[in-house]
């Protein structure tokens, strides 16, 4: 033990010296911000329950760049990719690796709100440009807003607010909510409660389970016991598939209408099959949106990736479009940060979803559609709320 300890102690000392030497040899970073390639760091889930979303976002992003000649602001791109595994615990480390070790110019990500919260903190601390192509944590463009942080997706409460309004208009009186217990779920349900109760309804019970568990049996029994007029849920990815199927297996879909944020049925219809037919959801995108940009986008995406695009692909696409707008304004010179950010903030994008502008906190202002599942599509049957912006509470920009 003694000799082993000595050896290990020497190892420790050598390791320390080794670190020092390695860091001396570390490149200091690209001081020439104008020339050379733009380093884009993609921090997204490529494994786990949100893997499909990470891939769709990446595809959409790269498609927009390709359509722009493969460059942004006249400069070529170098991608750095990190799989964040939708794990908030590893988020600061992962973000630090991209920002401090790889020295990326732009950070793009992510799906999971908890991970994005950590990412936005690291980006704010290091003043790195961050574009969020999905995670909807309200706070990121609220109290935690910053000049260098942008979002091209949505904020969690927007979908809930829209659906709550629609349900209240449909004269539903009581509701039960169910979701995973994390920022995205809590805020979505919170938005629903706010507008539903403002419209005269009452949320009789708020249920939740830890992310990403999918054992719903006791909750379904409780819902059946409470017999509300409507059930609002927030689930996405694999969890959404299971919930919709379990809801149908429990026979609840025949007596208690199920509604949710659009993620419940986006990208999941194939797996959900019969169980999802007729479900109403709210989202800022849907099938059958007949505008020229959307038609062109869908055709191009199908051609490039041999599959139908979904809302996540649209958000990734818009993230790249936003960056391109900014980079064009400063002609690729990222050193001109103030002009870059101003141009991005004022951008009016022609998005496949319709028109997209950003509010003070750099969060999207867009139409929220009401959709119904028909066959394998989320058919847009109306506009739930037009030009919904969520008030940037506490944003000091």
């Amino acid at each position, binding site marked *: 033990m003694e000799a082993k300890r000595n050896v290990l102690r020497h190892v420790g000392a050598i390791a320390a010296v080794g670190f020092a030497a390695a860091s001396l040899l570390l490149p200091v970073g690209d001081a020439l911000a104008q020339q050379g390639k733009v380093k884009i760091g993609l921090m997204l889930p490529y494994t*786990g329950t949100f*893997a499909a979303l990470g891939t769709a976002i990446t595809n959409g992003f790269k498609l927009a760049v390709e359509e722009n000649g493969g460059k942004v602001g006249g400069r070529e791109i170098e991608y750095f990719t990190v799989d964040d*595994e939708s794990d908030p615990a590893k988020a600061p480390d992962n973000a630090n690796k991209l920002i401090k070790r790889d020295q990326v110019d732009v950070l793009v990500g992510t799906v999971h709100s908890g991970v994005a919260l950590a990412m936005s903190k690291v980006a704010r601390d290091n003043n790195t440009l961050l574009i969020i192509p999905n995670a909807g944590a309200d706070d990121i463009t609220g109290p935690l807003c910053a000049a260098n942080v942008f979002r091209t997706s949505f904020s969690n409460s927007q979908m809930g607010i829209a659906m709550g309004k629609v349900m209240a208009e449909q004269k539903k009186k009581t509701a039960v909510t169910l979701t995973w217990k994390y920022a995205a779920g809590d805020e979505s349900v919170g938005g629903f409660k706010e507008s539903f109760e403002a419209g005269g309804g009452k949320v009789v019970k708020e249920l939740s*389970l*830890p992310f990403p568990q999918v*054992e719903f049996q*006791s909750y379904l029994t409780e819902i059946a016991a409470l017999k509300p007029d409507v059930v609002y849920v927030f689930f996405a990815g694999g969890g959404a598939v299971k919930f919709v199927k379990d809801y149908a297996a429990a026979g609840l879909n025949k007596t*208690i209408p199920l509604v949710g944020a659009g993620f419940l049925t986006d990208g999941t219809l194939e797996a959900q099959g019969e169980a999802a037919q007729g479900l109403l959801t709210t989202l800022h995108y849907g099938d059958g949106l007949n505008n020229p940009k959307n038609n062109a986008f869908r055709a191009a995406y199908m051609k490039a990736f041999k599959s139908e695009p979904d809302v996540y692909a649209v958000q990734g696409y818009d993230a790249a479009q936003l960056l391109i707008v900014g980079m064009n304004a400063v002609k690729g010179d990222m050193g001109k940060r103030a002009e870059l950010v101003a141009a991005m903030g004022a951008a009016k994008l022609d998005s496949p979803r319709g028109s997209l502008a950003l509010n003070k906190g750099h969060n999207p202002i867009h139409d929220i559609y009401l959709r119904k599942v028909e066959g394998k599509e989320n058919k847009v049957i109306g506009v739930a709320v037009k030009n919904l912006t969520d008030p940037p509470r506490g944003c000091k920009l």
Partner: protein
Amino acid sequence: MDIYSLLIQLLNGVQYGLLLFLVASGLTLIFGIMGIINLAHGSFYMVGAYMAFTLASLTGNLFVAIVVGIVLSVLLGIVLEWALFSHLYKRDHLEQVLLSYGLILVFEELRSLIVGNDVHGVAVPAIFNWSIPLTATLSYPVYRLFMSAVCLALAGLLYVLIHRTRLGMMIRAGASNREMVSSLGLNINLVYRLVFALGVALAAFAGMIAAPVSSVYPGMGTQVLIICFVVVVIGGIGSIWGALFAALLIGLADTFGKVLIPEAAGVTVYLLMAAILLWRPEGLFKRVG
């Protein structure tokens, strides 16, 4: 909560508890008989679930997958015991803990390597893919009833094995005094190997039948292991009856806790454990043999 919902939640709780018992029985058996603490027990559950998924995708039939899976898990148990765990009988608990912890990491990464980290659903076999309407609003999936029936049957078989067969007698004897049993000419090594394989198979089987209901996802092994530890701690290490009683207790506490006190759902089970430990530090039942 009206009487029907109460009864249905009771059913939910019992069903969950029986599944937990299946996994926990393997853990407590291995400890009670062989004195080995095996943290990787949850990984066997996960391995079972993933085997069900891959084999069912290949053969298109869950039952075939389960049969093949059981054979494979018995083999796995035998190999693991021979290669790794047999070295641990005379070692102290810290080393057992560390070795099995290392094993968990290995299993998790192998799964990641071979099957990936995605969440998968396993289809409920067609015969059971329907629901019995229990109330005007709620139907109960028949597959869950099937699961409970299977778990009960296995619990019965386990009892018969341990208390009514020669093998069971040897197992119980080996638990009390390994050296004496060896000197009587019984092959204690074989007995231990079989017991270990049995434990592994129980956990894996539980994973296989639970797969359609719980989905197949990376964290499932860890989750079930921790709860099993609580079951074994409450029930008393080495006691099968204790494991059954504690598993049902926990199944009910968890199910009712989720809907009655949603804010404290995950913690209910531990508060229960703390309360019981205050009263009986070594669990409710003394160990078998």
